[in-house]
């Protein structure tokens, strides 16, 4: 059908992406099961390239596909950029299906509810807990991609994401703590968290009497989860070529071979890793995926590309053009991003810090390319080489052009984090994972009152 539709259209390139998905979502708010719902979703889009400009049409109904293709071609003709040729990829015909031990989307609703209710009860029965939030969502998608070059790829994907939050209250003071969950659809990611649920509740209650850090520069140690968020925010986004390819000044700053950090620093993006949330075989332009060293031994070695950005920068497409769903065109995104393990033990890292901050777990992160912030779910003072008192949640900030140089120790304990999701250009939350060993950063600005 698709080849028929593409016949006779006057465009340099056309692609069609169709998607069917089924999602389950469960939300607890306090003792109340606030939402338990099922959603069916189907739709598609057409993207056409004519003389260097794009037309894009998305829709829910597949009828009249030929007219939709014609509309995308018409739209593309409205614009008039310099013509270019997409980075060439070989036409592929393939079907990709995930191999899961226990597919979350096939687990009965009653089992999911019972499990989550168990965590909720643990948190609610903990002292000083006023309320809780549990968010759980799993989704199964089938995405069919075809283009005018002869590719036809069917990918089946699953994803699971969630968060447990405990909210503590005393008088007018409200504090919260939580943990994020995620997997490529494997249900085990949400099982056996009873102990962790209890810890989250105890931490939220402890925050009520915890002090606020005094805002200033500190030496900080980041745990693997937060260091992964740091790698994603502080460097990953700057490696997305769509920020760079049309900006001559940024291209000069981001010239390959430039030093960004010490010799011990290696940052990688790799969708080919098995069984992670950011893993996939082909991106949403049908490009097969690759492992990309963004930084090797402290030096800028590569960046993430779509077929357009690769062509315009004279580099190779890396398979990082991703769309959150059929409503959006693919844009350059990360997949699984991490800092490679070094050799320093945690004891050596903390041992010579007179006064510093140890930050753990993820709460959020964002970047303006140059400046970035990320916040810790858990923070402790470090005094005389030892962990000391619990602190109220802290926000850390930095500037990519000097903070990476300030990493002076990289641990030996790499761990990947699958919680959360990435947002860019209105497309949120895209499944990604990130990771790192423990790292130590000198002169890091920590906000506080």
């Amino acid at each position, binding site marked *: 059908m698709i080849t028929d539709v593409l016949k006779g259209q006057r465009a340099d390139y056309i692609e069609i992406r169709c998607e069917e998905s089924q999602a389950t979502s469960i939300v607890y*708010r*306090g003792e*109340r*099961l*606030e*939402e*338990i*719902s*099922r*959603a*069916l*979703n*189907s739709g598609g889009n057409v993207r056409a390239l004519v003389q260097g*400009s*794009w*037309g894009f*049409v*998305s*829709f*829910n*109904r597949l009828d009249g596909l030929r007219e939709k293709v014609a*509309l995308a071609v018409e*739209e*593309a003709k*409205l*614009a008039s*950029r310099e013509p270019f040729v997409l980075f060439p990829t070989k036409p592929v015909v393939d079907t990709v299906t995930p191999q899961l031990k226990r597919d979350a989307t096939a687990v009965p*609703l*009653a089992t999911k509810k019972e499990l989550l209710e168990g965590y909720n009860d643990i948190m609610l029965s903990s002292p000083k807990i*006023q*309320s809780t939030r549990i968010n759980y969502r799993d989704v199964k998608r089938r995405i069919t991609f075809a283009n005018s070059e002869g590719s036809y790829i069917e990918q089946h994907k699953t994803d699971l994401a969630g968060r447990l939050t405990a*909210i503590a*209250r005393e008088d007018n003071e*409200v*504090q*919260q703590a939580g943990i994020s969950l995620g997997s490529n659809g494997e249900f085990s990611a949400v099982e056996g968290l009873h102990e962790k649920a209890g810890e989250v509740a105890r931490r939220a209650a402890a925050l009520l009497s915890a002090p606020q850090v005094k*805002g200033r*520069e500190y030496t900080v140690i980041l745990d693997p989860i937060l260091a992964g968020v740091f790698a994603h925010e502080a460097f990953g986004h700057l490696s997305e070529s769509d920020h760079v390819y*049309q*900006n001559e000044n*940024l291209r000069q*700053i981001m010239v390959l071979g430039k030093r960004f950090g010490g010799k011990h620093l290696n940052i990688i993006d790799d969708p080919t890793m098995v069984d992670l949330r950011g893993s996939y075989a082909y991106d949403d332009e049908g490009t097969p995926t690759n492992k990309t060293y963004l930084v090797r031994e402290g030096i800028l070695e590569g960046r993430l590309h779509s077929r357009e950005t690769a062509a315009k920068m004279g580099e190779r497409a890396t398979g990082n053009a991703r769309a959150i769903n059929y*409503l959006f065109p693919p844009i350059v995104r990360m997949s699984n991003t991490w800092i490679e393990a070094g050799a320093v033990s945690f004891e050596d890292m903390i041992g010579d810090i007179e006064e510093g901050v140890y930050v753990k777990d993820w709460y*959020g*992160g*964002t970047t*303006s390319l*140059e*400046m*970035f*912030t990320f*916040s810790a779910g858990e923070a402790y003072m470090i005094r005389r080489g030892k962990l000391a008192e619990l602190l109220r*949640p802290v*926000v850390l*900030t930095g*500037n990519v*052009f000097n903070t990476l140089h300030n990493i002076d120790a990289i641990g030996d304990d790499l761990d990947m984090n699958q919680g959360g999701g990435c947002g860019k250009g209105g497309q949120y939350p895209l499944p990604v994972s990130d990771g790192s060993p423990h790292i130590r950063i000198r*002169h890091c*600005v920590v*906000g506080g009152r």
Partner: protein
Amino acid sequence: MKDLRKVLHSAQKVAEQAEVFSASARATTIQFEANELKQVQTKESSSIALRIFREGKVGFAVATGGGWEALVDMAVETSQFGGPANFEFPSSQNYSKVRIYDPKIKEVPMEKMVVMGKELIARIKGHTLEILCDVQVTKGTSSVSLVNSQGGEGGYEKSFFGLGLEGILVRDTDILWVEDSASSCRPDLIGIDDLANRVIWQLEMAKKKAAVCSKLLPVIFTPHGVASVLLSPLVLAFNGKTVLEGASPLKDKLGKQVFDKRLSLWDDATVAYGVGSYPFDDEGVPSLRLPLVANGVVTNFLYDLQTAALAGTHSTGNGRRGGGSPSPAISSLIVEKGGISFQAMVEDMKEGLIVEEVIGAEQGNLLGGDFGGNVLLGYKVENGEIVGRVKDTMIAGNVYQVSRELLGVGQETRWVGGILQTPPLYCSGVSVTTRGS
């Protein structure tokens, strides 16, 4: 409506009460990237959602692009585990007219939108030649229909026109972002002049750099700054759900003075041509102009049907759907303007900051009212004059502390992002942290 009735009819066979809601939209966006027209896109979407009460419990399912036949079965499945059905769907009502559709939207040619984008970029480049702008010009229409088993029924059409610009200026390793947008249901109300002037003002103020030390300082939040920093914790605190579960710092504060006397705040779903306006909410409850804060006193919270029933009160017409089941959410928020001009606020400052945009502002303890983050765009004031842009600077504070006593509420009010109308707010005692001190 015919499809809706079909679903309603088959749902009524298995449920005590039922409600069918459908939304569809079509929007075309002209996108400029790095000053050039990169892409034109059209998005069409439609969805249909079913909510039922079955054996006293709520079930919910939603489908896009077909699959309506499965809706009833899916809703029945979820109802087994659903919460108690403790409210009624609203029966037939007379909704008052809210102006949200302008037929002129159909007549805006794409070519005119292309010209708008080009002219806007030309204006900004006329001020700063090296700037690279991403511009979006969007026009669209949407429609909503609703029918329930209690005789309730309604439908409306809405139009939308929006213009947004994000500019990036890179010099060595210094990156400056400027940004502004405007939107309305009425295309004639959106022009390039105001937007261009505001962005040019940002560029002008950010021309020089200024240094700041770590300490407590007064801060003027511009309308942009109010939206970026102060809005999120307040929206969360006035949400009836947060209040019901006892997690809102305002939960016992109805009728009490919590904010400065000069502060008044409304949620207003009836603003003519406001992009957040509607004649009835996504559950068929008529829209209101609802005072949340009157002269510093907390007066109302936002409710949907279910939350209101649990809290023993009435829906305020704020039941909104973001793809899932209804939940309380704002329509448009309006902060009443005050008596001091922006210029007078600046002149009043010996040393302080003007904050336009903060990144990471939503990463702290929002429930507790904390705000904080890295100042993406902000200016230093010395002896009553703006001296330049600050960088590598964090602010931190608590919205309840800073708004208990304000230094001033501005005279000049404006819309930000189509859903907040606010003047600048002049606050004291915000913690500022910067590098190397």
